[in-house]
Structures are given as structure tokens and as C-alpha cells.
């Protein structure tokens, strides 16, 4: 099957890592994947094509904005590919009722905006997939979409030196409440037992221009003084090609998720790429969800209670946690490789 993705690709965020993996795994399985556009040296692992009519299906990967699906871009896609050969991966759960997690994070600011999204989706595609085990809308199909690529795994002997005890790789987008309410107090309580800590990503020390105009200033909350007091370094975002190596400079990598995603149990690239890094991943998920994704060993890596003590415990028992991580990797290899994901996508499109 020939499948072309259409998305708003960015080098240091979003789902570009998974698109790269679909291309590699697709080649192995005899399916051809490409990304809509012209070859771009910023994306060295991505195969691009503009020839949409040469593909069997167009898959739109939509996150929290649809401005990129402009009236300039869409007509050509509509003209060349009929709706029954177009599908949407609704990566951020926009095709749902209005959900406001703890009156903080939300998918839509109003019912009116939600209705616009729904109308948009219905025009764009026949099939809507969401990367969650439990879609809520009856016309949405489960498609986990993101996966694990064992070939990306960095072995301890080839791993970069450990520069940090704790790393958090991700952008500050609706994460501050979890970070400030759970993680930072825990770090504060055991700070003297921890070495270097860094947050890698955007908006931990600045709010992007236009956030207030768009009414999303709350998504970028931070407290620079608190971070400074805790000696947490802020480092710029890294390219998708370097993210696993960057994670491997930390003994522990902490994965957080925006509340909306936790509520909808939406998977992301990071769920899996963090296990390709030479590190001990600790995921701020409830243990049941961690087990659902990572298998029974995943419960041990869920960071939800006694966070400070857990951080110290992981640093003091590296062998024990390395074994737990290996157990999770075995589970991922069995259930969540991109070979699995390619087959699932092909089946879902053909269904």
C-alpha cells in the first residue's frame, strides 16, 4: 500500500519521529510511506512527495491546530484524492466533546469551536483514528499510531556521558500544573540528594508572542525563580533526530503529559522514544495506564506517589531499574513496534 501523510511538520516537536519510523518500517514490510511536501534538508530521514494521486491513501495527522490545513493547501488534496481515501489521525483528541480537564487544559474553548472542528473533520476524511485504547466517540477508531523502534535504542556502551541525574524533555504546553503541583515539590524535598537536573524544550522561561491574543497564556505558565532556586537548567529544544541521544544524557528521564491527554489516555511519540534512550524512564501516569501500555513492569516506572523517594531510589539502584526497563522493552518489542503499527494502519485503512 502507498500512504502519504499530510501534517504540519516541525523539527523539534510533534509527531515527526513517528513519521520517520513509518517510512523505515513500511519499507521493510513492502509499504511505501511519504510526507506531503518538497524534500527538506531539515528532515533528513523523511521521504517527501507532492504527487498525492500516486498514493492509495492520504492520512492527515492533526494536532491542536488546523490552521495549516488552509484553503490554499486543501483544494489540491481534495481534487486529487476522494474522501473515501482520506483519513485523519486525531492526535490531540480534538474530535471529542468539549473536555476541560480540571478547568485548566481543554481541547476546545467552546461548543462553537468544537462544532467547527467536527465540520472540518467530516469534510476532510471518511475515517478518524485516535491514538488511545479507548476512543470516546462512536465514529472514532482506536489506532495507537505511535510505536517503538528497537533500532533507535542507544546501548549503554555507545551512550553519551551522563551529564544529568534527571532530565525532562518536552515543551511547556499545559504541563505546568503537573510540574509545579507534583514534580517540583518532590524534587525540592530531596534536592540535596540529586545531581544536575535539566528541562529541555521550549517555553520553560518564556511565553511565545501571541499566546495572550490566542487566549492560551495559561498553557505556558512557569516560575523562573523557583526553577532557578531548584537549580534546574533550561535548555533549548532539540531536533527529532537528536532527541533520543539527548535523553540518554540523563540517568532518569521523566515523562509528563498534558492533563487532557492523561484524561483521554492519548499516546504520543514520547511514550516510546523514551525507552529507546539509555536511561531509566519514569512516567507520570497512573499505574494502570502505565501497565496497559508498557506491560506489568510498567507499573514500577509510574511516578505518581512518593515521587521524591522514587527518584532517589532509582538513582541508588540502577541495576534493579535497568532490569525493569529491559522487561518493558521486551513488552514493547512484542506489542508496540512500528512494524505492528504499520500493519494496524494498513488494516484500518482497508477496513
Amino acid at each position, binding site marked *: 500500500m502507498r500512504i502519504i501523510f499530510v501534517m504540519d511538520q516541525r523539527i523539534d516537536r510533534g509527531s515527526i519521529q513517528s513519521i520517520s519510523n513509518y517510512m523505515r518500517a513500511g519499507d521493510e514490510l513492502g509499504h511505501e510511506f511519504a510526507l506531503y511536501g*518538497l524534500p527538506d534538508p531539515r528532515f533528513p530521514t523523511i521521504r517527501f512527495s507532492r504527487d498525492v494521486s500516486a498514493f492509495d491513501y492520504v492520512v492527515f495527522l492533526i494536532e491542536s491546530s488546523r490552521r495549516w490545513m488552509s*484553503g*490554499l493547501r*486543501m483544494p489540491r488534496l481534495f481534487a486529487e484524492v476522494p474522501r473515501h481515501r482520506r483519513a485523519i489521525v486525531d492526535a490531540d483528541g480534538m474530535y471529542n466533546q468539549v473536555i476541560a480537564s480540571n478547568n485548566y487544559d481543554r481541547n476546545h474553548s467552546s461548543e462553537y469551536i468544537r462544532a467547527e472542528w467536527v465540520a*472540518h473533520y467530516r469534510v476532510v476524511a471518511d475515517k478518524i483514528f485516535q491514538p488511545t485504547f479507548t476512543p470516546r466517540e462512536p465514529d472514532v477508531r482506536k489506532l495507537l499510531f505511535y510505536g517503538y523502534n528497537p533500532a533507535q535504542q542507544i546501548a549503554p556502551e555507545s551512550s553519551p556521558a551522563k551529564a544529568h541525574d534527571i532530565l525532562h524533555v518536552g515543551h511547556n504546553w499545559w504541563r505546568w500544573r503537573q510540574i509545579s503541583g507534583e514534580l517540583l515539590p518532590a524534587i525540592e524535598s530531596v534536592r540535596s540528594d540529586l545531581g544536575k537536573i535539566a528541562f529541555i524544550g521550549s517555553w520553560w522561561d518564556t511565553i511565545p508572542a*501571541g499566546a495572550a491574543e490566542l487566549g492560551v497564556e495559561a498553557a505556558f505558565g512557569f516560575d523562573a525563580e523557583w526553577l532557578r532556586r531548584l537549580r534546574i537548567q533550561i535548555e533549548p529544544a532539540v531536533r527529532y533526530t537528536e532527541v533520543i541521544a539527548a535523553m540518554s544524557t540523563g540517568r532518569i528521564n521523566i515523562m509528563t503529559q498534558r492533563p487532557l491527554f492523561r484524561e483521554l489516555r492519548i499516546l504520543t511519540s514520547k511514550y516510546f522514544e523514551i525507552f529507546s534512550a539509555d536511561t531509566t524512564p519514569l512516567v507520570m501516569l497512573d499505574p494502570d495506564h502505565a501497565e496497559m501500555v508498557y506491560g506489568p513492569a510498567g507499573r514500577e516506572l509510574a511516578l505518581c506517589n512518593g515521587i521524591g523517594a522514587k527518584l532517589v531510589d532509582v538513582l541508588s539502584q540502577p541495576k534493579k531499574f535497568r532490569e525493569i526497563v529491559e522487561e518493558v522493552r521486551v513488552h514493547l518489542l512484542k506489542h508496540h513496534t512500528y512494524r505492528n503499527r504499520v500493519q494496524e494502519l494498513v488494516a484500518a485503512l482497508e477496513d
Partner: protein
Amino acid sequence: MKLLIVSRYDRSARAINTIIKYVRVGKALGHEVALFSDQIGDMPDVPTSRDPKAFDYVMFVVYETPDFPDLPYLAHLLDGMPRERRIIVDCTGRFNETIEVEHDFNHLDKLENHLGWEWIDGFSAVAETILQPTPTPLRADARGFLFHGFDPGAIERHYDSAEEAARSWSGKIDNSKQYGLVYVGNNWQRWSQMRSLLKAIEPIKQSVEPICLTGWAWDHRPAWAAELGIQGIDTDLAMLQQMGVELKGNISFDQVIPFISQGKFCPVIHRPLFNQLGIVTNRTFETFCSDTVPLLMLPVQMIESIYGPAARILAVGENVAGHIQDVLSRPALYWDAILKTRAYLADQHSFQRRFQELSAILAK
């Protein structure tokens, strides 16, 4: 002809004046022209429709990507009107290879998230006929159609002779002009030319005071422009304050002619990109409806081809201060040129003429 116009309608930006002229002049000529929209609250007398099937042609008037409607409306348009009866008026030269002129450009990925090829592909997918408001399109598959026009019925004040106009303009009949020089337009790719103009008139400032700039972003450089490093939206508030320039925000399209008429002089400035491509704008024509002396700061070739031979004398040239002083000392000479140019514009560039040209293009 039943014509449905598709664009983003803003009372103080882009082609709203021209679009409304198409509605009104079209009706007078027996055409039916409506805007693709729900009823527009602040323009209740303008006909609107969401039903492309009720029209012969759909005309997209495009400056930016948001001028295409959002889904699902766009899909309704594409489904309801075949491509060969869809037209795009490409007001800013998007349907070209990427062009940079000084700090101006027709495509900028970092600002609009669309590369040059997408403008070509996108326009071609939407419409069979791409029109550009220039006499000289660069691409073989684009056609020249000036789109904007001159409405003699909108002239603020009619004169029987240049002498009468000069007496009135000089304040010898009444002294109603509030400003020496006004400009109406948003500060997008115009600052370098405006700065040059202001610098040039600084030595004779007392002759053209007070000065007023009206439009968006003359008083500040937006944060996003600084963040993206876009130079075409610069300003110098200290310089403007030092020269005593009054700054006003946007004004509605139906206030432009009366407002410009409050100034003795009004520059006609086009973006550097437009100067290179020969693109005209609404203001190219509308300024001649105002009771003012236009200062034509355009390429000489464009002045002659658009305004006719009489307008040559209205070209500012290198010696801006000298030109203004000459107008002040011999106003009848310049008003003679203005009145002749108005007549030329009425003959060559009326909206009636535009409709004839458009009909001829569509008939082919």
C-alpha cells in the same frame, strides 16, 4: 452575469472598497454580484450568499491564505462550482516563483507556513483562470486584469477648471483642509518609502504641516515581526514624534476619500514588490477621487501606463521638497493634470470597463 465574490471582508483592509464597487456597479450594469458570506452585520445592504450553485462564476479575491474560506465552506464552493468557472484575483503576486524585493516578498514560509510551490499548486487547483492586477504578469498562465478601478461618482469635489480647483485647494475659497499631508494605509512594506518621504520634506515641514498617517502599526513594530525578523513592518516612533506626525488607527473604507480630502497632499506609495511586478491597488485609483494633490511615488513607466500622459507632472521624482514647493507655488498647473488624469481614469479604468474586461476574459 451572476458573480459570487469570495474573500475575507474587513472594512479597513485589502480590497473591500473595490469589492463593494463591484457589487454596486455590477448591479447598475444589470449584473448580480454577491459576497460569499452570511449576512454581514456592518454592511447589511450588501447582498450575500452561501449558495455557489446560484451563480455563474465564483471569483476569489486573494491576498493571504485566510482569504480562502475555512472548511466546510471551501468544500461547498469547490463542489458547487466547477473549476473552469472559478477565478482567482491574485492581488499580491502570489502566483509567481518566490520573489524578494528589498525587504518585501510574495511568499514567506516562516510567516505563513506555505512554501512558494504551494501557492502555485493551490491556485491551480482552485481555479482555471488566475488574474493579476498588473498589465504585465510574469507567468504565461496568469492573465493581466487590473481589477481595481476608478469611480468618478466617488469624486469628493468637482471643479469646472484647474484655476477653480487651485483656488479652492489653496484655501482661497474656504480653508477647510485640516492637514498638509495625509496618508491612509496599513504599515506593511511601506515604511522605507514613508521614511524617505518624511525625511525629504523635513526641511520644508512648515509648508506641509500638520502630517497625519492613518492605518495599522505606524506607532509600533509588532512583537511577532521582531520575533520573525520581518523588516517590512518597521517604524520609528521617535522620528514621527519629533516631526509632529499625528498617528491614527484604521479607518473604514467609506471614510478614506473624505479623510484624504482633508489633506493638501497625499502620497501614492506601492510596496516594493508591487512596484517590481507592476501591481496596482485600490488606492492607485481612489486617491484621485479625493480633493488632494496626489504625490505619485511610483515607477515612471507605471505612472504613464496607468494614469496617462497628463499625470507625468504629478510624479514626485528625486527632489521631493522641490516638487511640493512647486505645487504650492503653481497649483493650477498641477490641478490641471489632476483633472485630466481623472478624465483619463474615468475613460480607461472605470468599474464599468472592468466588468467589460472581466466578461471578455470569462467568455473565452
